[in-house]
């Protein structure tokens, strides 16, 4: 087995178990979307109007939860030293970590998102679009979030710092994704822009993560 596949399997196992793993993110997401009807009242028309938007915001927040441990744990126990002395460039290692983060957190959330949106009153016809957009958005959240997590390395209260760094960067995918899942004439353009943002994050964030990790190790 090559070092790359060994790393991928390890990161997936760690992401699956990291701080409760996917159950924590999905549980948070379900709780947050359940709070909405309690706050705005049970009027079906009012709920349906905001269902997809609220789903999308809850998705962005839920994807922040386990970012704190993405690099911090490896940094604390010395594993980041060894990862950076390995056969892969740090950029590739960081990308593998984010990919595992997406599979362990983004993918379960992408499955939970349509359920939440429909139960809040979104039309059933929107289910494929919501799942697709949530999956793409999750990719962007994982890579942009990884950059925030790497930048917050070695700082105390890293979790809050990550949220403050990352949430502004999540504004574009929230806007594009909101347009995509909201239906209407802008949906196609929203999905295309969301995909573009996700791909840009996948392409650029590894360089930021590697630079931030090297800085933290020095």
């Amino acid at each position: 087995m090559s070092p790359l596949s060994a790393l991928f399997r390890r990161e997936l196992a760690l992401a699956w178990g990291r701080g409760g793993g996917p159950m924590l993110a999905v549980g948070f997401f379900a709780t947050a979307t359940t709070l909405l009807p309690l706050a705005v009242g049970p009027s079906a028309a009012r709920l349906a109007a905001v269902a997809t938007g609220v789903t999308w915001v809850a998705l962005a927040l839920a994807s922040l939860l386990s970012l704190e441990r993405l690099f911090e744990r490896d940094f604390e126990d010395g594993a980041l030293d060894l990862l950076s002395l390995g056969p892969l460039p740090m950029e590739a290692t960081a990308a593998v970590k984010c990919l595992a983060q997406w599979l362990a957190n983004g993918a379960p959330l992408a499955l939970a998102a349509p359920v939440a949106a429909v139960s809040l009153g979104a039309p059933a016809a929107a289910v494929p679009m919501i799942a697709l957009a949530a999956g793409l958005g999750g990719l962007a959240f994982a890579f942009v979030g990884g950059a925030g997590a790497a930048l917050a390395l070695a700082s105390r209260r890293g979790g809050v710092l990550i949220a403050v760094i990352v949430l502004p960067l999540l504004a574009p995918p929230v806007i594009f994704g909101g347009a995509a899942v909201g239906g209407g004439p802008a949906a196609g353009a929203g999905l295309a822009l969301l995909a573009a943002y996700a791909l840009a994050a996948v392409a650029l964030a590894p360089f930021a993560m590697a630079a931030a990790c090297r800085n933290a190790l020095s």
Partner: protein
Amino acid sequence: MITALHIENLSVGRGHRVLFRGLDVAVRAGEAVALTGPNGAGKTSLLRCVAGFIRPLAGVVRCEGSGEPHLVGHQDGLKSGRTAREELIFWVRWHGGQSAGALATAERLGIGRALDLQVRQLSAGQRRRVALARLLAAPRDLWLLDEPLAPLDAEGRDLIGREMAAHLGCGGLILAAVHDPLPVAARMVEVSAP
């Protein structure tokens, strides 16, 4: 294959403080160098500089030949929630070794029975043996060791001493920060404040 390590006129600082200035050390194939000096003298920083993590204020670190070093630092790089076996096999594969070799090495270092325990259940000495098993199962020429023997018992030190001697016999290089003498013949280099 790294055949020699040259540290030339090296100055390293942390923050605004210069730890040491103008340090010259050469390590040749088959040679062990023990870095001594009081706490805070910069032994760990020197090792991290050689590993490429810290940029020196002045001077160069030059290797003849190419390849990445092995590093064993204060932390063992093991995840507390995973088993020793999972962690050992991952790190050996990551460093280019085979899992069969990893398990054989674990037996040799006396941690064969501990492999199924979670890392958090291991003693500090057992964790260090897992970390050192990585060096033996995934061969690399240059070993950078930061007080490698500190948590080990007398038997463990003997074991590692024999493995170090074998590594040197095959043309390996060892640069180790120590407070107690290494269990192999080593040239002592004092790291001290300017």
